[in-house]
Each structure stands twice: as C-alpha cells, then as structure tokens.
C-alpha cells in the first residue's frame, strides 16, 4: 500500500475536504509545490489557484482556493482556505467601504456607485478564470 498523508481543506465557513492522499499540489507564494507523505514541516501562503489532491487510486481532485495558508506536517497537510479574494489594497478598499458605510448611515445618505465592490468582484473573476484556464490546459494534455 502506498504511503499516504491526511489532507484537510478547511475554510472559515466550513470543512471542504478531508481524506488520505499520496500527493498534494498547491500554488504557494513562491511557486508551485508538491507535497508527498512525510514531507518536513512547512508553512506558506497560497496564491489564488487550485489545490490538487491525488488519492491512492491515482485520481486527482481539484479544489479552487482564492488564497490562504498551507501547513504541512509529516503526516497531515492542512489547507486553510480563504473564501474571499485577499490582497492588501482590496482589504484596504473593504475597510474604507465599511468606514464610509458607517459615515453614510450616520449622515443618512446612500452610496451611488460601489466602486470598491466592483473591483473586488473583478479581481475574483480574474483569479477564477486563471484557475479554469490552468485546469483546461491540464485536461488537454
């Protein structure tokens, strides 16, 4: 029997996947990484992209994550997935938005155009497209 490692993919809104795997691939901050069982302890930020989990039958399962953290210990791999697209300026925009909403609420005004929201949605769409394109390329091979 092949050596396996337990893989948990969890997000703040719930568990996404849990099970054994013979190999895990993920897009880490400094490039794509492949994690085999008994990999040494490792921690990295994830870029938006897909996480592939290969099970004992050699089948691959794909999970799209919009970022997050990858934590590796010799017999367990944990992906702490973000459910939202994160970037410094986007977070900043969200913060400003929350502030503005508070001010609006107190002043009794309504916002006209939600620029920040549109920007966040656009960024998410782009990251998703990228992941889909990658998936397609892999299927084509």
């Amino acid at each position, binding site marked *: 029997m092949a050596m396996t490692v337990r893989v948990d993919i969890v997000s703040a809104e719930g568990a996404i996947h849990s099970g054994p795997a013979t190999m895990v691939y993920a897009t880490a901050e400094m490039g794509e990484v492949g994690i085999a069982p008994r990999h040494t302890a490792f921690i990295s930020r994830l870029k938006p992209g897909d996480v592939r989990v290969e099970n004992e039958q050699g089948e691959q399962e794909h999970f799209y994550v919009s970022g997050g953290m990858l934590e590796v210990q010799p017999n367990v791999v944990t992906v702490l997935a973000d459910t939202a697209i994160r970037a410094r300026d986007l977070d900043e925009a969200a913060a400003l938005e*929350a502030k503005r909403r508070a001010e609006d609420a107190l002043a009794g005004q309504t916002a006209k155009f939600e620029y920040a929201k549109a920007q966040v949605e656009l960024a998410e769409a782009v990251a998703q497209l990228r992941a889909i394109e990658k998936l397609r390329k892999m299927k084509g091979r």
Partner: protein
Amino acid sequence: MAGAKEIRTKIASIKSTQKITKAMQMVAASKMRKAQERMSASRPYAEKMLQVISHLAKATPEYRHSFMATERELKRVGYIVVSSDRGLCGGLNSNLLRRLVIDVKERQAAGIEPVFCAIGSKALGFFKRFGGQLLGQATHLGDKPHIEDLIGTVKVMLDAYEAKEIDAIFIVGNEFVNTMTQRPLIRQLVPIAGEARDPMPYHWDYIYEPDARTVLDALLTRYLESLVYQAVVENSACEQAARMVAMKSASDNAGNLIGELQLVYNKARQAAITQEISEIVSGAAAV
C-alpha cells in the same frame, strides 16, 4: 345584536396573526438548525489556526506581533457589537445592548473612552440613537453570513489598534447556551488572551515561505476575522432560537385570546337568541 359580529372579526384577525407567528416559529426552527451547523463547521478552521499561531509564537519568540499579549495602558477601547438585522426575536438585542451599556459606563467611569463597530442593523440603529463614535458597520448579512462582508469592518478596528488609536478590542455578541438560553457576552479579541506558554517538548520548526513574520501576520488577521465570523454565526443561531421561542409564546398567547373571545362570542350569541325568543313569545301572548 351588536357585539357578535365585532367579536367574530376580531377572532378571525387573531387567527390569521396566529398563523403567521406559527409559520415564523417553524421557519426559525429550521434556520436555527442550519445556523448551528454553520457554527460547528467554522470551528476546525479557527482551532487549526490557533494551533499554528501558538506554535509560531513559541518557535519565533523574538518576534512579537502587536496583536499578541502586550501590556498597554487602556485609554480607548473598541467594541465590535454583533446584533441581529431583524427584530421579533424577544429580548435578544435589548439584553445585549443593555449589557454593553453597563460595560461602557463602567469603562467611562474609569476614564476609558469607547469606540464602536456595528454589525447588524439593530446595533446600528442603537448607535444612531445612543450616539458614540462609530468606526465601521456591516449590516444585512442575511442568514448565511460571509466572511468577506466582515473583512472591512474588522480591518477598520485592527488598523485603529495598530495605529494605537485604541488599546484593546472587545467583541460583544450573544452566546448560544441552548435553544432556551442565550447569554450576552463580551469577549476580548485583541490582544489575544490566554496564550499557552508551555515549553515545547522538543524543538522543531517549519520551513517558512517567504518568512515567519509574513506568515504570522497573515495568520493573525485571518484568525481574528474568523473569530468575528464565529461570533456573527453564533449570534445568528441565537437570533433564530430567540425568535423561535418568542413566536411560540406569541402563538400560545393568540390561542388563549381566541379561546376567551370565543367564550364571549358564544355568550353574546346565546343572549341574542334568548332575547329574540322572549320577544316572539311576548308578542304571541299579546295577540
């Protein structure tokens, strides 16, 4: 006879109210179950994060993030107030806000200035009336709150903390004890309290990419956000439970009212019939 028709319309209107409250009770019951599931689903994420964070804190003791226990003199504190968006849930929000007011008064007496962040329209409405400095707000999260709706609100507070504008952040929300009991609770969010300081059994460390500091910063922000998210989800479970109980007692009260009115109606009807008969009889006797 005059009263009977009036009473009949009254009974009909109470009956339709009872139907509405009964429906709301059942809707709240099913929503509560879902909210509870969401509550337990978000736990593994926060637990895992706490594990990694406490490991990182132990492995790299030379780097102390400002979110972790640092002793600052409290001058201004921030409250993130988590309330529901809708009413008709008994005393849930008013109990919570009362608890908050007591706490704020105590702090003001000690010379500490409060600032607020409102999550949920009930809290927002409260601050509109009550005054107080509002840094951020998030409302209309719905039954399925999403973490991205909270990021901005949390960041406003964390930024204020990092800029030393506030010295601690508390989160005010309801704790789900069981279906019948919800308890307003004020928890400290930042600085992160209760950090385990036990020495590591043997030394091991992660390979960091890109480095420990970046990883720790990213983790801490996400951890705090997930705590706020948990509070929001827990509060929504509380809201549904409170609504369910409130609607159940409303339906029961409507049932009692209908019973009483029915009795009055029957009496009035009987009186009318008796009167009519006596009129006919006396009329016949006169002929």
